[in-house]
């Protein structure tokens, strides 16, 4: 691919050119800064490019949605962030947002409308499922995942918080891999331990870390790949796999990475 195809359009560029993208890709803080999750961002960008989706990002203009502040109780800080973001989003007359972070997704979709930010917000698992459904992503059967066992770890902020259970599973089914479920899945899915701002502090004293409990359950399925759809789950499950010294055998991958790999992107 030519270098120019990896120019990532920002809303500011688009506006300067008088163009309006179909979707805004909300990258999120983890997708922007976290070394591991940046590769999810890149994988998703490759899919967007490959499918010819008209998109842009906010780039340097994006800031934290305020999710961890609100969940830790700092409503002032949350609303300051929300108002600032809404000002930017409304300034660009954004209609449709896709994000790879369930926490950003939940906040943008459910919590911004009351503060004046009304957008169609889609999580990337649903977006990928739609691309597959529309035939824009056609995964070749017998690809690199044929015969591999994949287990999907439900993100609380997709599942119980927003009732999204099937889209990520449909994406995985398209990979022609064997999807195995953990005992606690869907509405009963066990949290990775990082939600509610837990990502940003140590756990309280207890007899076990939540991510270890969840990783043990994931490993018990015998899966080669633990599929995740959330940056916090990704960190927690990866740490869990490392803790169990299974990182050579078991990979924790995001849905976008799985699609990109399968497409050879």
């Amino acid at each position, binding site marked *: 691919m030519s270098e120019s195809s990896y120019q990532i359009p920002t809303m500011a560029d688009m506006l300067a050119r008088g163009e309006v993208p179909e979707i805004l890709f909300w990258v999120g803080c983890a997708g922007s800064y976290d070394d591991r999750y*940046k590769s999810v961002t890149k994988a998703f960008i490759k899919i967007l490019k490959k499918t010819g989706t008209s998109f842009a*990002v906010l780039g340097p203009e994006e800031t934290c949605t305020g999710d961890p502040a609100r969940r830790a109780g700092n409503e002032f800080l949350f609303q300051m962030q929300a108002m600032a973001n809404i000002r930017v989003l409304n300034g660009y007359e954004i209609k449709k947002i896709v994000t790879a972070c369930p926490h950003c997704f939940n906040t943008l979709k459910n919590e911004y409308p009351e503060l004046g930010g009304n957008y169609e917000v889609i999580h990337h698992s649903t977006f990928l499922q739609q691309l597959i459904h529309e035939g824009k992503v056609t995964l070749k059967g017998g690809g690199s995942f044929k015969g591999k066992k994949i287990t999907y770890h439900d993100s609380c902020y997709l599942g*119980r918080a927003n009732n999204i259970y099937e889209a990520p599973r449909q994406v995985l089914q398209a990979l022609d891999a064997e999807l195995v479920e953990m005992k606690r899945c869907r509405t009963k899915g066990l949290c990775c331990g990082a939600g509610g701002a837990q990502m940003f502090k140590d756990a309280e004293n207890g007899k076990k870390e939540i991510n270890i409990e969840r990783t043990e359950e994931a490993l018990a399925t015998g899966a080669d790949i633990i599929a995740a759809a959330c940056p916090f789950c990704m960190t927690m499950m990866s740490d869990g796999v490392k803790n169990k010294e299974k990182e050579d055998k078991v990979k924790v991958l995001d849905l976008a990475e799985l699609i990109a790999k399968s497409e050879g992107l």
Partner: protein
Amino acid sequence: MQYISQIAFVLVLILAGYFLSKRIRQIRKNILMGRPINRSDKSPERWKAMLLIAFGQRKMFKNVIPALLHLLIYVGFLIINLEVLEFILDGLFGTHRLFAPFLGDFYTVCINFFEFLAVGVLFSCVVFLIRRNILNVNRFSGLEMTSWPKLDANLILIIEIVLMLAILTMNATDQILQARGHMHYTATGSFFFSSILIPLFEGLSDQGLIMTERFAWWFHITGIFAFAIYVTYSKHLHIFLAFPNTWYGNLEAPGKIENMPVVTNEVKTMLGMPAEDGHATPANPDEIGRFGAKDVNDLNWVNLMNAYACTECGRCTSNCPASMTGKKLSPRKIMMDTRDRLEEVGQSLSKGGKGLEDGKSLLGDYISKEEINACTSCNACVEACPVNIDPLSIILQLRRYVAMEESGSPASWNAMFSNIETSFSPWKFAPTDRFNWSEELKQNPKSE
């Protein structure tokens, strides 16, 4: 003699009515100590939620065996109580089985069905006692399950068993008296389940049988009145509150946290934006009140009704990731503490005491920061509750108080707050580096 029992019955009825209505008014008053929240919108959806979840027991059926046993007791409770109407009318008019002559054979069918349900209730209660006390099912234990909650649970089951035995005894002795052609005992046809008990009482004289039958009748009806009053002091209140609790439940996405319009207005003022909706603009900043919840009156009334609706089944706690990994947080304890504190305040106020100003508060004296800090907001407790109780809502309001009024959040959270304030990300990265990934991708598109 006849009139004496009628007068006694009227007195019992009045007394029970008095105590019951007094207690109901007290609970209502306590619940209304909560701040207002509008949960009267979308009424078709609310009726649907109530019918499916409370009336239809839908969420109970995630776990089939307890659900079936519970269903037997629930249906028994709903239907056997139809018979209470006959009890009350008989008591008032000094009649005996008032409905029997009117309903004829259908009466026999009804009583047989009630007896079947009574046996079902008996069976379920015995199994539940075994699950609690012998099998020691995990979710019935825990820090908050101290001696009273355990005794309360056992008492409820035992009272139900005794009440059902009273019905069966009454029907058994009644049938013997009918067979002996005793005048007062209208022929009703035979009742399958209670007739099994007939051999136990056949040796008794007519007088002994009448005494036993009357005793069982009085025991059953006064037992029901006493139980109704007891229920209002017990976790068993869910039998009534499950209905309004599901009707007034949260219909929005569970991931959404309740907005604070007071903060919205302050933030808008700070940013120099017009505060459009004037509804929450207080003229005097002192009227704003507390940010978040420190005590029960800071919570909304639905939170407080939730607390009374909780029957301490522990499904929330057994599904809570923090609880199952040994942290102090237990969503059930959050609900029980809220109820206990509310009761304490309500009792104190009704005696002219200090109420909320007693130097204690929900946060601190009942619920610790360590508990609320352990929550991952994963909604497992909310999902697990068969009557849509929302412990998460309470936890988050308590966190708001700690963060905004006390600045008492854990140090790492305070660091996260200042990262967001200064770098617009919860991590300490330079805002100018936010878009660096695009350069990395441009330079090395094939890498991961």
